[in-house]
């Protein structure tokens, strides 16, 4: 004895919909009269207008608490990460020696990446600094900017500078250069006043075997203290990030080699289990030769 549900015919449903969309008796469009629609639109206009204003206001207030020059908190950046160039999709540098196209894109990227390091540009924009010392430019109460940056000349990269290099950073000969850089962190005194350098190893024993010899530029993979501290995009307009180039001389061809480079600095931990890029970088290297 369940109450019988009236099955509506298709026509009825359509009719009901029609009436819902426009009811000629009550002059209702979608269940509301014109005035009602006007009211509701006005209401939402006012309401959302107010809400937007409130949002804007609170965001503005919030942004007042944030300085333009230095971030309020840097707790997440205690350990700068390391990264390689050329930057590839899965951090793997694959070179088919015979296939020019396979490495040409890397070369293009590197050319572009290294352009600001050209000696001429450096000489024009940046200072020659005293190596082995932090290049501090304190504000001392008065804002002191733009701050000067130290020169990092492309020629310092030696065989990997790519200047007048017919081998295209070694890519055409199967001796590729990989550039390593440390993430910028504002006001970070890397190395804690001691010299630091980058070292690379094969990740596992067989990788170490396959990796073969490599040379580093600047020598020993050193990163000089004079490039620190970094004062931020706004202050440190022409800041040039120091690089370390690694040229792999005789990688076993046709094998994937896992390379791990890390920075040896007194105040940079490189053993964070969760963050695989804290003070280190891992990438794959594969030279295909026929």
């Amino acid at each position, binding site marked *: 004895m369940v109450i019988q549900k009236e099955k509506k015919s298709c026509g009825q449903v359509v009719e009901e919909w029609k009436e819902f969309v426009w009811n000629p008796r009550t002059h209702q469009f979608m269940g509301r009269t014109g005035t009602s629609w006007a009211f509701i639109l006005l209401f939402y206009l006012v309401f959302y207008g107010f809400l937007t204003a409130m949002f804007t206001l609170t*965001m503005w207030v919030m942004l007042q608490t944030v300085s333009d020059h230095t971030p309020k908190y*840097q707790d997440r*950046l205690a350990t700068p*990460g390391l990264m390689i160039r050329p930057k590839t999709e899965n951090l793997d540098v694959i070179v088919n020696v015979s296939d020019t196209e396979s490495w040409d894109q890397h070369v293009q990227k590197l050319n572009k990446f290294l352009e600001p390091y050209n000696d001429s540009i450096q000489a024009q924009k940046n200072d020659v600094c005293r190596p082995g010392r932090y290049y501090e430019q304190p504000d001392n109460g008065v804002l002191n900017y733009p701050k000067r940056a130290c020169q990092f000349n492309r020629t310092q990269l030696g065989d990997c500078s790519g200047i007048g290099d017919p081998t295209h950073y070694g890519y055409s000969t199967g001796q590729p250069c990989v550039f390593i850089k440390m993430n*910028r962190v504002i006001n970070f005194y890397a190395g804690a006043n001691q010299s630091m350098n980058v070292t690379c190893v094969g990740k596992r024993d067989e990788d170490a075997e396959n990796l073969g010899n490599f040379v580093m530029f600047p020598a020993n993979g050193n990163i000089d203290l004079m490039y620190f501290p970094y004062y931020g995009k706004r202050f440190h307009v022409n800041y040039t990030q120091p690089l370390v180039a690694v040229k792999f001389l005789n990688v076993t061809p046709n094998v994937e080699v896992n390379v791990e480079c890390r920075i040896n600095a007194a105040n940079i931990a490189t053993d964070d289990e969760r963050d695989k890029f*804290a003070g280190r970088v891992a990438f794959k290297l594969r030279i295909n030769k026929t």
Partner: protein
Amino acid sequence: MGKKTLEIYSVELSGTKDVEQTDKEDGKERYRGLKNCFHSKKDHHTEKLKKELDLDDHKLSIKELEKKYGTNIITGLSSTQAAELLAQNGPNALTPPKETPEIIKFLKQMVGGFSILLWIGAILCWIAYGIQYSMNKSSSLDDVYLGCVLALVVILTGIFAYYQEAKSTNIMSTFNKMIPQQAFVIRDSEKKTIPAEQLVVGDIVEIKGGDRVPADIRLLSAQGCKVDNSSLTGESEPQARSSEFTHDSLLETKNIAFYSTTCLEGTATGMVINTGDRTIIGQIASLASGVGNEKTPIAIEIEHFVHIVAGVAVSIGILFFIIAVSLKYQVLDAIIFLIGIIVANVPEGLLATVTVTLSLTAKRMAKKNCLVKNLEAVETLGSTSIICSDKTGTLTQNRMTVAHLWFDNQIFIADTSEDHSNQVFDQSSGTWASLSKIITLCNRAEFKPGQESVPIMKRIVVGDASETALLKFSEVILGDVMEIRKRNHKVAEIPFNSTNKFQLSIHKTDDPNDKRFLMVMKGAPERILEKCSTIMVNGQEQPLDKSTAEAFHTAYMELGGLGERVLGFCHLYLPADEFPETYTFDVDAINFPTSNLCFVGLLSMIDPPRSTVPDAVTKCRSAGIKVIMVTGDHPITAKAIAKSVGIISANSETVEDIAKRLHIAVEQVNKRDAKAAVVTGAELKDMSPEQLDELLTNYSEIVFARTSPQQKLIIVEGCQRQNAVVAVTGDGVNDSPALKKADIGIAMGIAGSDAAKNAADMVLLDDNFASIVTGVEEGRLIFDNLKKTIAYTLTKNIAELCPFLIYIIVGLPLPIGTITILFIDLGTDIIPSIALAYEKAESDIMNRKPRHKKKDRLVNEQLAIYSYLHIGLIQAVGGFVVYFTVYAQEGFKPNILINLRVEWEDSNVNDLEDSYGQQWTWYQRKYLEWTGYTAFFVGIMVQQIADLIIRKTRRNSIFQQGLFRNKVIWVGIASQIIIALILSYGLGSITALNFTMLRPQYWFVAVPYAILIWVYDEVRKLFIRLYPGSWWEKNMYY
């Protein structure tokens, strides 16, 4: 369900069962009703039922019966025979209604409501992982975990709901654990007591007064046996039973006693002819299980609400799936978005909260004597618009009570309240002394011994209802009746029988100087008057002249017109010379005068209304609930009770009343003038459904009298056709179809039979109508509070959903994660939403009309829009402010975040630049993202506190309602804060949960928005109060 056995409640009570003036004629009408019911209700049952009703056992002679059942009335069955039959026919018990298997119930919980959506979410997670895995073997297991978490959520909430339901079912199963009934049976030529369940067809059983008839029995011999068939036929008068075949119909013949009816007095021996489900009662019970159970209104509402939410979730999900695909996202990403949207949209914890809320109310109602069997029924009572109430026991006290006295030409009113304490009528007259003596002495009822400490009105009495009433009446006024009787030794007695219609006894008096015998007599007033020649006025005997006879008749008619049962009393002092002390009275020869007696007075009795009922009926009326009385009683009695409890209000008249007042014929009366109607079962039988509909709509005060309980079903259906939510009270087995059919069946806990309790949704532990009213109040409150709970819960869904939408469209780093959303829905929000169940009513909920089933929805457009598009959006904005604050202060200003998503999530990009030129590794960003989740979470939590506070009321200001009246709300708020603190600071180091330790100041960023929510809602409520009926109220009041 446990074993189905006897019901313990009615046994003692049956002694005081209401006795009414019913004549044979009407009895037949009722049976007809019963048969009609068999015919009309279940067609495929009909054939079978008919066949079994055509049993001719009552027509057979004893010899034939012995042959038919292979038994012997002297020796009974042999044990082996009995064992065989028992194995063949099964135990003599009603099969409990078919239970849904537990596993089905459990699975239902697993797929009901939102579960299906969450399953889809979980499966999508696993599919997404499958795709990822096929592309990259080392892909992260995050999606698998999320899928498992979603599945776990479904399973846990399912288990919870199942557990809650099982718990409420358990309350009922305690009812079924009752003492097994014993039957006195002759087997192997021996009389033995065996459990009634083991009875088989052909057993010879003996029953005596007070027993419950253990099976359908053909009586072989009977001595003064009377049974109470009320649970079967609704007939409240005891029915005599003998071994004679008196009627062709099995139901009407005197030589059949039915299973589960009670033997009131006398003894009988009989042969079992039907056992268990094949008994008449068993057949009715199975009929009840055939009546479809209606969905409760709240179940419909929740379904409606689930549809709305699921509709929103699915349509937004699909819309954004399409948007994502057209924005050139990968299908995999689009699937993950879909999961996020589903999880954000579904209020996972809500159904569990609703269950808890309902069971909290159920508990509260149980304290007020309403035991709720079916949790959802809690609310049904609140939406009830018509109550079809029994009279006997529910509206009345279910005991005959002396209501009026007439002596000295005057009507006196006796106190009929529950304790009788206040008897104010004039007791100084000599007539009263004589009358009281007759009442005391001419009475066979006695208190059961050992009840000295029990209040008089509660003592158990052996004897019929009117004698009981008289006994208690005299005990209250005169003191120890048994002592008086002892002093006035009874020497002879003629018990009441239906031919002479009087009862007489002769006593020695307690006056040692008076050696005369006193003969006292009571009976039908006109019969008593016939026997009298004098009448006592003011203690003096006067000749009975015409004018006094006239006065008698007027009084008699007046009392009868009140629906009361009137008894006449007279006495005679037998002259000492004719009847010396040694005289032997012979009651068969009647060697003493029975005429020319002295008439003393009249006493009228009624089953009086419970004192709380009139008030309750008034409350019902102001709450817009129509109370309809449905009773098997005589229309006059029914109407009198209806008037005294207010079901028919003092100034309304029936058509008959108007006709009488205007001295015109009933047909001439304009039916519109009458507000009230008294309809008898016979009239109802001739009505078409349309006529019944008309009756139900046109009259606001209706009494159905002389109805069979089966007609109750017809009345209930009629009410339901008016779109009313109908509550039905009942106690008999035969009420069970109506109880089942009703939107909410209410069984009587004391007088109710098992079948009625089984069929009902609710049991009134004190059988009191007033308890229904408290139930209605609780039901309405819970509806209001559920509305608040749902509004509260739905609000934050938008705050959870918006991040996803913005994430997809604008490409910000994800503001809040799926797991975090689950922690809001199933963590911080649970206790607060339950706390709203403790909210007090905003206004007098008993002063408004019951909600309209179709119009006043639990979740209406206004509620959804206000929650989603107003408060929800404010919350979303507030959440974003916290999120942006965290990112900006860490180095990512809002402008840089736009369209950052792809690089941000790429684990190979480890030198992503922020607004200051710093570079971030993937993990550093991930940690920041989790901080963002935590921040957004805290932002929502803080605003949910404001949301919780504003949801306390829908119309009144919070300050009118009182901020601190509901302490549980504050427990809820504390729980929110504590859970959030634990998640952030306690579990912040567990990366799988994606919570991080949040800087203390971020907890306060959303506070301005929380305040905005509160202020905005106060303004909304203010306008609603200021401009009732305005555009604002129509659009903003939910």
